[in-house]
Every structure is written in structure tokens, then in C-alpha cells.
């Protein structure tokens, strides 16, 4: 019989590295959640505003791209709080490193600002425009943006998809963390961002047609999310010792309870059920369902962020 490792001792006790890696806390979970939510908001608002309407859309849709920018700024604030060397934050913008997802993300974030701001102007209804033009001399910009409406909404859509995928890839490319070493994270975070975006819009007063569409898109996104989580676990099941380690945290290990209760049941299963009932019985939507979806999105980031950090190669034989 081959001898097995009985005990390992180390003299290394570096803070945040030992005994288990914990370099990223709530700041990054909040940032990843808000990044996904903003991606969802940008994609959904671009899609819903694609065709010019005779009547101005509901207020929240008119302001969706600008609200997305406000939320993105909050997210970047959380990201900033996480930096250990805050004075050097400008260094993200003195280089572009094509191999680094973090570098892509930093640039995507700043590129989204002008695009979403211009889309935000286009999305405003007549009342809001008149009010804005009284306060700020934006007449020329608005006229120019109106002429490029389709291109701007297209760019917003692309920016949203890029942002949504990036938040997943950021973790997914850090292959030294075994649980993040799955290609599913990009699509999973994008889909979760879409459902969060829809849920956020559903918290506000919407036109009946938009509300109906968003509920259905939200349900679709939740189903796809559940399928992707299944695919992730299936992938782990077929990935040998590393996969076993990655699956363990969610299937019996430290993160099992929070993953299944907060992410799967609270964030996906219950909202799906409630939305199904609401559609079937033609009930008015209540704020509970979208709130659960949003909390589930935050929980997904928080759980995978924490569980993944704690899945290093040192845990393999």
C-alpha cells in the first residue's frame, strides 16, 4: 500500500493566506453582484427601448441606463474599498494587459460610462428631456445621440453582455482556485445578472406589456441559471480529485447550507414558483419576488466567492 499523507505542518502564517485563503470579502461580492445587475439592466433596457415608441415608456425604463450608471458607480466604490493600495488605483489606467481579465474589466467599466450615459439621454421621455435641457446645455448632445439611437442602444447591449460575462470570467480564469476553474461561471453570472436586472425593474411601476415581458424573461433566466448550476456540478463530478474538492464545499461541506437555501431555494426556486403563480392566476406582482431574486443574486456571488477562495491546490494530495 502506498503511504498516505498523515499530517502536514507549516511555519507559514501569512494573514489572509493562512490557514485558508481569504483575500476578497463582502466588497468583491457586492461589486460582482452590482456588476451583474448593471449588465442585466443595460441589456434589458436596450432591448425594451430598441423600437421607438409612440408613448414614452414608464419612468423607470426612461431612467434605467442612468440608474445603471449610478449602481455601477456604487459597485466600483466597493471595488475601490477592496484595493489594498488605494492610492495606486490610477495604475489600472496606465496599462492594458490583454491576458488579465481584471484589466479588461477595468477598461470595460470606463467604456460603459459614456455609452450608457448617451443611451440614458436617448431613453428619456419628453418631460424629463425638457427638464434636463432647462438645467444643462445638452441640446446638441441630445440631438446627436438621437440620430445614433440604434447604434447607442446596440453598444449598450454589447457593453452589458461584456460586463456580465467579465464578472464571471474574472473568477473563472483564476484557475489556481479549483472551484472557480469552470467555464460555466461566465454564462452563469451573466444569466444571474439578467434575472437581477429584470427583478430590479419589476420593483417599479411598469407598462403592462413591459412587465409581462420582464416576468417571462426573468423566469427564463432563472431556469437557465438553474440548468447552468446543474452543469457546473456535473462538471465537478467528472473532474477527478479537483472536481471532488470543488463539489465538496457545495455538497456536504462548509458552504452547502447557504448555497442550497439562499441561492437555489430562495433565489431561484421560490421566485420561479411565485412568478408562475402570478402569471397563471393573473395576480398583481408583489415586491417580494423580485427582492428574493436580487438577494439570491447577491448570495450566489457571495457563496461562490468565499467557497472558491478556499479551494486551493494545497488541499489536493
Amino acid at each position, binding site marked *: 500500500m502506498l503511504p*498516505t499523507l498523515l499530517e502536514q505542518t507549516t511555519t507559514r502564517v*501569512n*494573514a*489572509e493566506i493562512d490557514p485558508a485563503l481569504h483575500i476578497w470579502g463582502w466588497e468583491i461580492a457586492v461589486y460582482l453582484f452590482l456588476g451583474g445587475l448593471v449588465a442585466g439592466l443595460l441589456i434589458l433596457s436596450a432591448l425594451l427601448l430598441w423600437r421607438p415608441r409612440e408613448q414614452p415608456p414608464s419612468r423607470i425604463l426612461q431612467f434605467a441606463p442612468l440608474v445603471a450608471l449610478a449602481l455601477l458607480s456604487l459597485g466600483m466604490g466597493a471595488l475601490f474599498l477592496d484595493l489594498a493600495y488605494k492610492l495606486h488605483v490610477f495604475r489600472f489606467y496606465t496599462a492594458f494587459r490583454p*491576458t488579465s481579465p481584471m484589466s479588461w474589466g477595468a477598461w470595460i467599466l470606463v467604456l460603459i460610462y459614456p455609452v450608457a450615459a448617451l443611451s440614458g439621454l436617448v431613453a428619456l421621455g419628453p418631460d424629463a428631456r425638457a427638464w434636463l435641457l432647462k438645467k444643462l446645455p445638452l441640446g446638441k448632445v441630445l440631438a446627436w445621440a438621437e440620430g445614433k439611437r440604434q447604434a447607442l442602444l446596440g453598444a449598450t447591449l454589447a457593453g452589458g453582455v461584456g460586463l456580465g460575462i467579465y464578472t464571471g470570467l474574472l473568477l473563472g480564469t483564476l484557475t489556481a482556485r479549483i472551484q472557480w476553474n469552470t467555464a460555466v461561471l461566465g454564462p452563469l453570472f451573466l444569466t444571474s445578472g439578467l434575472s437581477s436586472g429584470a427583478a430590479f425593474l419589476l420593483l417599479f411601476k411598469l407598462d403592462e406589456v413591459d412587465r409581462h415581458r420582464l416576468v417571462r424573461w426573468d423566469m427564463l433566466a432563472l431556469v437557465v441559471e438553474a440548468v447552468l448550476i446543474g452543469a457546473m456540478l456535473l462538471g465537478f463530478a467528472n473532474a477527478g480529485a479537483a472536481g471532488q474538492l470543488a463539489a465538496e464545499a457545495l455538497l456536504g461541506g462548509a458552504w452547502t447550507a447557504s448555497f442550497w437555501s439562499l441561492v437555489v431555494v430562495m433565489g431561484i426556486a421560490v421566485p420561479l414558483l411565485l412568478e408562475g403563480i402570478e402569471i397563471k392566476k393573473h395576480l398583481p406582482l408583489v415586491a417580494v419576488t423580485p427582492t428574493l431574486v436580487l438577494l439570491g443574486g447577491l448570495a450566489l456571488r457571495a457563496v461562490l466567492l468565499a467557497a472558491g477562495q478556499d479551494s486551493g491546490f494545497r488541499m489536493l494530495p
Partner: protein
Amino acid sequence: MNREKRYVMVVDTRLCVGCKACVLACKAENNTPDGFCRDWIVEDIWGLFPNLRAEIRSERCNHCSNAPCVDACPTGASHKVDGGIVLVDHDLCTGCKACIASCPYDARYVHPDGYVDKCTFCAHRVADGKTTACVAICPTKTLHFGDANDPQSEVAQLLASRRHKVLHPETGCEPNLYFLT
């Protein structure tokens, strides 16, 4: 002949007694902050009592040939210099910690001043033609440092004549810290 240098460290696990002189020499040489270390001692016990086997290793950054930390760094702070040594440019580092997450060996940490820090293979000493502080102090001649691409070097000859391993070769990072077994 003009060839590229590849600095490696060779650790003879048959000689190491785990005295931690390398750890202290590193702290003294590189003035690492309290509570942090750039190199450390790992002791593995294998088997079942009473048939036990021990392996003591002096570990540090592997200065991987295919370094994921360099790829993950968004600012170019993590970079490679002559001989394949991986360094962190403190002035470029934002403390985003992507490199820490990308390192399969968990060899990096956040310095209390904010930047990310790790073993430099004592690049400042190597540039002066000296060996690293840990190698210089090792009382049992466990540690060896040199250019593996030079067939005359001590490290090349040790690797040619002795059985050796690297840690977690499955990462594909091509680590440059070798352990004689």
C-alpha cells in the same frame, strides 16, 4: 555561447532538518513585515504509525516559467526579469490581489504598506553576483541556487544526477523550485 538564463532553486529534502535559518535569513535580508514570511518550512509525515516517513521542505515562490500571476496582473506590476525571476513592481501594484488568487502555491501576501509582496530570489543580491540569503545561510547545504541552463552549474548537475520533483506539476505553471527526494 549566448543562452538564456533560467534561475532555479534546488532543495535537498534529504538534508533539510527544518531549522528555519532560511526563514530568518530572508526576514533579515528583505526586512519582511512582522507576521509575514516569503519562505517557510513544510513538514509532511507519511504512512501509518510506526511506519512513518518525513519530508521537510523549505518552500517559497516557484518563479514559474509559465507564471499565472504575471498573466493575471492588470497593471504589469507582476513581471519577469533576467533569468525568469518573477518580481512585483511596488509602484505599479494596486493591491487588487488577482495575483494572490492566481497563485497555486499561495506564495504571495499583501504587505501592510498595500502592495503585494513575495520572494524575489534575492534579485538584488543575484545582480551583484551573490547567491540568495536563504542559500547563503543554510547550515546543512540543503539549498542551492543557480542557472539550470548552464550545464556546469551546481543546480544543473544536481538535477541531472538526483531524483527530484516539483510541487503540483499538474498546474502547468512549470515551477522552478525543485526538491531532491
